[in-house]
């Protein structure tokens, strides 16, 4: 059958269909005038050709009625049309079933549009399929917005990933730097202490040795602060009780005296890093003073207390010793270290002496640790 014959057959079928509906038939009028593109095909003719299309369909596809009548709908398919979608439509038509499907179609000029297609068979009284009715809805705008949104989200996700990677990299570099600096500071502090010790070892002068030991003692107190500060994951804080415990046990332990008794009452007191050094020096001077006043030579008892007290923070050193003569210069130096540190901290000191017993209490206000 030639194309012309097909066209004529389709046209005739369309005319017959129209003839069944008077021009004033509101259903026919609605079909023609609606903005929804619609077509009717005739499955009883070869290749199920289009026998009727409305104006909206021509506008959507760019084909005139003359160009489409007698042709199969596959004219709308093109290289970008999903073959699986076409197969599903074909199967539905073969089975005589309704189908609703989204498919990419091509216009006459080759451009594409997203078509929300609905195809439904029309049956006569005998149940035979006499027409297929199809409506189309161009949802290209919605589809492209979806695609834009997906693309934008994809871009945003990529950007977030890139920036996260940048931040992680920067954080990693910072962490390495902090560890490196911490490591160098620790090494340098130990090197300073080693230099002082080496010179003390070499010196034959008692006074020089004593002086260097005195310097070493304070350098070591500060070294211990550095070690205790950055041992903590929470950089920038310092537990005074932990420091005090190590200081008193190591200082008294190295005297190797069985006649010295140490007791402690230590409760965790966390202070900001800025206060760590002066507090450490205060603890160091108080314990050192007890050792110099007689603990180091005659033995005795030393009690160290670090705890919170009514919103304040208390450091108390109580000792029972048999007093010995002290080096006046060393004593004056220790006093200077203590007073200067107390002044920096705004701390109060109270000292009572009763026979062989000395009791020193230092109280200071410390900001609550910010969680």
């Amino acid at each position, binding site marked *: 059958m030639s194309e012309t014959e097909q066209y004529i057959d389709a046209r005739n079928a369309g005319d017959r269909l129209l003839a069944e509906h008077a021009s004033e038939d509101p259903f026919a009028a609605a079909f023609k005038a609606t903005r929804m593109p619609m077509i009717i095909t005739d499955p009883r003719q070869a290749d199920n050709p289009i026998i009727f299309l409305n104006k909206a369909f021509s506008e959507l596809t760019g084909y005139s009625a003359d160009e489409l009548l007698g042709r199969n709908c596959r004219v709308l398919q093109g290289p970008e049309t999903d073959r699986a979608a076409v197969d599903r439509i074909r199967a539905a038509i073969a089975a005589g079933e309704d189908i609703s499907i989204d498919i990419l179609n091509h216009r006459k000029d080759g451009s594409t549009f997203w078509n929300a297609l609905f195809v439904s068979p029309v049956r006569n009284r005998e149940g035979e399929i006499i027409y297929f009715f199809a409506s189309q809805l161009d949802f290209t705008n919605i589809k492209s917005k979806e695609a834009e949104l997906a693309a934008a989200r994809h871009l945003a996700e990529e950007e977030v990933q890139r920036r996260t990677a940048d931040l992680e990299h920067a954080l990693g570099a910072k962490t390495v730097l902090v560890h490196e600096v911490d490591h160098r500071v620790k090494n340098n502090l*130990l090197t300073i202490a080693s230099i002082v010790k080496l010179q003390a070892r070499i010196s034959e002068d008692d006074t020089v040795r004593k002086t260097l030991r005195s310097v070493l003692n304070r350098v070591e107190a500060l070294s211990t602060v550095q070690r205790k500060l950055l041992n903590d994951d929470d950089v920038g804080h310092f537990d005074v009780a932990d420091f005090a415990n*190590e200081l008193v*046990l190591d200082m008294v*332990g190295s005297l190797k005296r069985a006649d010295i008794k140490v007791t402690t009452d230590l409760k965790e007191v966390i202070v900001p890093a800025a206060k760590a050094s002066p507090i450490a020096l205060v603890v160091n001077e108080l314990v050192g003073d007890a050792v110099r006043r007689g603990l180091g030579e005659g033995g005795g008892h030393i009690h160290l207390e670090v705890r919170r007290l009514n919103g304040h923070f208390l450091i108390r050193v109580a000792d029972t010793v048999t007093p010995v003569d002290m080096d006046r210069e060393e004593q004056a130096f220790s006093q200077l270290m203590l007073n200067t540190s107390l002044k920096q901290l705004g701390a109060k000191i109270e000292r009572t002496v009763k026979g062989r017993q000395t009791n020193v209490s230092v109280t200071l206000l410390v900001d609550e640790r910010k969680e």
Partner: protein
Amino acid sequence: MRVLIVEDEALLALELESEIEAAGHKVIGQAAAGKTAFELIEKERPEFAFVDVQLLDGPTGIDIGRHLAKTGIPFIFVSGNLKRIPDDLVGAIGALEKPYTMSGLQNTLAYVEAVISGDTPDLAPPSLVFPKHAKGECEAPVGNHDQPQ
């Protein structure tokens, strides 16, 4: 005791040697890198070792520690960063964190002597960090020896 020092900072090694000799021990050698350390362990068979982690040829102190443990030579780590050492200290008696104090070092030496000679040490130095899940003699009788969290 015949003691090996594994430390890449010459001044620290020198002072450590003085302190060890002052306590009546013999330092059989210093190693600043892994290779020298392994050679000295092989040749001199020390009875004890101080081992820094970060050496001239990188963080090879851990491997030296493992080798000492396998050879049956007691040792402690001396390091500026204890976080680099596995929690079980790969068989070390303990780890002394830098910067240690003179008292801390002397107490550690006394403790180590006691442990090696089979005595019960009367004081576990508070600055010495012990392996996690330590048992028996490594359990500290006094003070808090856990690494601060």
